[in-house]
């Protein structure tokens, strides 16, 4: 595969992710933190994010099924999810989390359930996007990394 082509593909794809609002500056900064000493940093962080988020989403679903809903706990979970999503720059997930927390404060069950649905949707979206992004990257991680260093401001 042509390196230049790959590079363009990668950059285009990432730009589209920024444009569609899936990712924000934070992701860029995350990428900046990756260097020779820590070559798999972004992938590690992102997979940690997936792991964490899936666990949290399951917890949330379970908590919302309960007879008496413990809103405090839900709030803590959503806060966690919000923190981690903002850390990797998944801003759409983060935004839904903010709405989720508002509903949680109002103790609105329907709102919470709706938000959980949305969070799930956004999460799966960003997951597929990021996975495909890494799929593009993974074969030639090193090269891409250097390129991205050059391309990024």
């Amino acid at each position, binding site marked *: 595969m042509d390196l230049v082509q790959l590079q363009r593909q990668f950059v285009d794809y990432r730009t589209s992710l920024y444009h569609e609002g899936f990712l924000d500056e*934070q992701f860029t*900064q*995350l990428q*900046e*933190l*990756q*260097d020779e*000493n*820590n070559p798999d*940093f972004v992938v*590690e*962080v992102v997979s*940690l*994010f997936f792991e*964490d988020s899936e666990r949290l989403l399951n917890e949330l679903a379970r908590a919302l099924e309960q007879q008496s809903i413990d809103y405090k706990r839900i709030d*803590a979970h959503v*806060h*966690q999810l919000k*923190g*981690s999503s*903002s*850390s*990797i720059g998944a801003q759409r997930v983060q935004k839904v989390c903010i709405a989720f927390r508002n509903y949680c404060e109002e103790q609105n069950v329907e709102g919470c359930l709706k938000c959980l649905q949305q969070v799930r949707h956004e999460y799966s979206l960003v997951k597929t996007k990021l996975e495909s992004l890494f799929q593009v990257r993974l074969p030639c991680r090193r090269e891409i990394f250097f390129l991205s260093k050059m391309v990024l401001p």
Partner: protein
Amino acid sequence: MLCCWIASMMSMNCLINCQFKCTEASLLGDSGTKMWFKCWDIISTYSFKIHHHYYQFIGSKRVSKTWWRKLLLSWVIGWTVVSIWIFCYMSSQATEKRRETLASMCDERARMLQDQFNVSMNHIQAMSILISTFHHGKNPSAIDQMTFARYTERTAFERPLTSGVAYAVRVLHSEREQFEKHQGWTIKRMDTLEKNPVHKDDYNPDLFEPSPIQEEYAPVIFAQDIISHVISIDLLSGKEDRENVLRARKSGKGVLTAPFPLLKTNRLGVILTFAVYKRDLPSNATPNERIQATNGYLGGVFDVESLVEKLLHQLASKQTILVNVLDTTNRSYPISMYGSNASDDGLELVSHLNFGDPFRKHEMRCRFKQKPPWPWLAITTSIGILVIALLVGHIFHAAVNRIAKVEDDCHKMMELKKQAEAADVAKSQFLATVSHEIRTPMNGVLGMLHMLMDTDLDVTQLDYVRTAQASGKALVALINEVLDQAKIESGKLELEEVQFDLRAVLDDVLSLFSGKAQDKGVELAVFISDQVPETLIGDPGRFRQIITNLMGNSIKFTEKGHIHVTVHLVEEVIDSIEVETESSSNNTLSGFPVADRLQSWKGFRTFSQEGSIHPFSDSINIIVSVEDTGEGIPIEAQSRVFTPFMQVGPSISRTHGGTGIGLSISKCLVNLMKGEIGFVSIPKIGSTFTFTAGFTSGSSSSKEYKSQQINNQTNSVSSEFRGKRALVVDPRSVRAKVSRYHIQRLGIHVEVVSDWKQGLSSISQGGSAFNMVLIEQEVWDQDLNGSAHFIDNLEKRAITTPKVFLLSNSISSSRANTTTSGVCNLTVIPKPLRASMLAASLQRAMGDGNKGNPRNGELPSLSLQNLLPGRKILIVDDNNVNLKVAAGALKKYGADVVSASRGMEAIELLTPPHRFDACFMDIQMPEMDGFEATKRIRDSEQNINDRIHFGELSVETYNNISNWHVPILAMTADVIQATHEECLRRIRSESVGRTSVHDLLMASVQPPLLWHALRYLNKSQFFPREKNVFL
């Protein structure tokens, strides 16, 4: 309240009036009394109610308004009633008076009539005695018609009321013929006459018929000429006369007939009849005896009409009243004897007349001729009172309306005022928010610019970046000023209460301006009195801000001369006011004249009321003066110096820049510090700004506070200089004082001389040797020969040759001079003098310096990569992803990162001894949040520090660190005001308790801010208390 008072006064007045009137009414009129009491009752209950309601609804406008209306209505009605009553009363008084007048007039007339009648009657009685004596008592009779007529005619004046007198004899039927013969006429009867009344003209006695036969007759034999026509007429034949005659002879008294039209004249008259008896009768004789003894009858005709008229003529004011005289023997048919019968329903008064006949009753009725006049007095009085009452009512009404209107207006104004204030607050809040919002990204911009400067740049680029950074800093400074102003205006600004070193603050400020001052060639000096304590508790940042503002202004407007900052205790200044006044104007720092600073605190309250200073409290009031020799403030602009955004003139901002907000902020800050600010300024000479500020003394607990690093430094240095002696050669006492102050701070004993000679003498005679001689550059330059001589002598005379220093204002010129003078061991100390600078210079010169201490502000340049070389950092966050990212970020800069996901873990890890250099902690964590964890860490650190301090624990086991205090930085993703404030609050509350925890910082994981945080961390090795919160 005023309204209420008026209302109460009014009702009181009303009550009093009413009461008064009521008593009056009860005295004068009966009918009115009840009504008045009723009225009073109503009014008093009303007024009570009004009071009650007014107090109850004093706030409610509408209710009070209706009550006012009711009160007004009752007022008007009340006074209308009062005026009507007054009218009635006065008119009745007038009527009464009229009646009384009429009564007295009537009575007077009646009495006169009665008197005159009695006189006439008496005379007639006398005449009857005359007749009985001369007619019947003598035989032949001594009286004939002629004699009688003449006598009666002559004595008529004595009987003004009688129109004629006649005498009739009693003739029995048996004697009739003889009598008729003797008299020569027959007895005639008069009843036909009564039936056919004849006219006066054709009256003829011969027409009378002869009397019919009767038992007895009473023919008239004598008569006055006027009534001579009645001679021979038998009185008993006339109905009236007969009754009269019979009654007269029965009673023996004069009797009267009812009024009847007289014969011939046809006018109304009455006839008085007296009986003439043959012999004297006893007073208690029976009627029969009287009848038997009767000889004849004397009758007098009273022409009542003419009589009364005559009588009335005699009296004045006859025309004002009408008089009627009536015979009321028969009550139901009173017979009018005199006066017109015009019936008038006006005022009529009756007086009884007694004419001596008990059988007949007469009365006199009097009336006024005119109708009673209109009671103008009563009308005008009552109308006047009504008008006054109405006017008063109108005035009250108008007043109430006015008050209501004013109240309404006032309410409106209040509303508007509230709105305006709200708008003002909103403006301030908006300003505060906006400037805060601007500041946040600006920090990012500045941080990035700084990062940019660390990269490889060529000269031009570096210049651009520097310019950009300078502009950015200026912008931030401006925003900070605006934010301060806004905060002050919205009352949000609070002062800190921390311990600080005043001298260090002033040294700092001095260093800030030293460059500018040197560029301009302006001498800058700070003098702090010895009595000002080392440490004070207050807000050093704000204090510094005030000083910076004032000095900044001074620097801006001063081209030559000096800027002199002096700090004293207020008490000290008060005590020494008299001493200060004698200081001459040319005894100043640079020799230029200055504005007298005494004038600047003339208006201060602290000085006017010394009682406000409590000597026993630990509050410390300091007074700071900033004196310059600038261009001064024009007199016309002096009044608005402290108004925000006001500058001396529009051109000023063009020549000198600035927003004109600084002095206003300074004033507010001074006020917050319970102080005052004032100034005196003389154009072309200079200005002196003076302010006072209240702090609390920090000496008592100073050991618990970490004193500032710079102070430590000087302290450590000063221990080297302690006990040494210095000589200052300076002819100007003020400047020498400043030099001495700074040198003394290093623990050096200072002696001041004014010229070379004195200097030499003090050196030669001084017991202990001087270690150093500091010479003012001015002295040096003035007399180069003298200085050379001095240096020569110095080496000869002194036991150990002291080092010689030159105190110089500008470095370049002094260097030039030094070289020309050729003295090699001369060290130049650049002004402005500061303890640290002085110490460094002295150290260097004394040979034992050269420790390689970096100068203030000259931090080792930091680059991103070697910012955290091998430092061990703990990161605490419950979020794995965040933990990872933060750890990644810190690792990138070479740090050795340890992660912890819970607060408890962090506490365990950070319990001394440990090897962590810093800790980054998430604020929001489950189980235990960042604040709580920090608090616990601090507690355990404090505990261990104390135990080490008291020797319970050996320092060796704790890595030889006796003071454990790991910097903890707060991490949060949402950089919002609330969290920031919360951090500040927490920090404050903790610092009040034990040790200052000024290290809870806000940091996001975003690189620019992170970079700042790291930079702070690095810096904190040198200045742990430089700044509380970093954003």
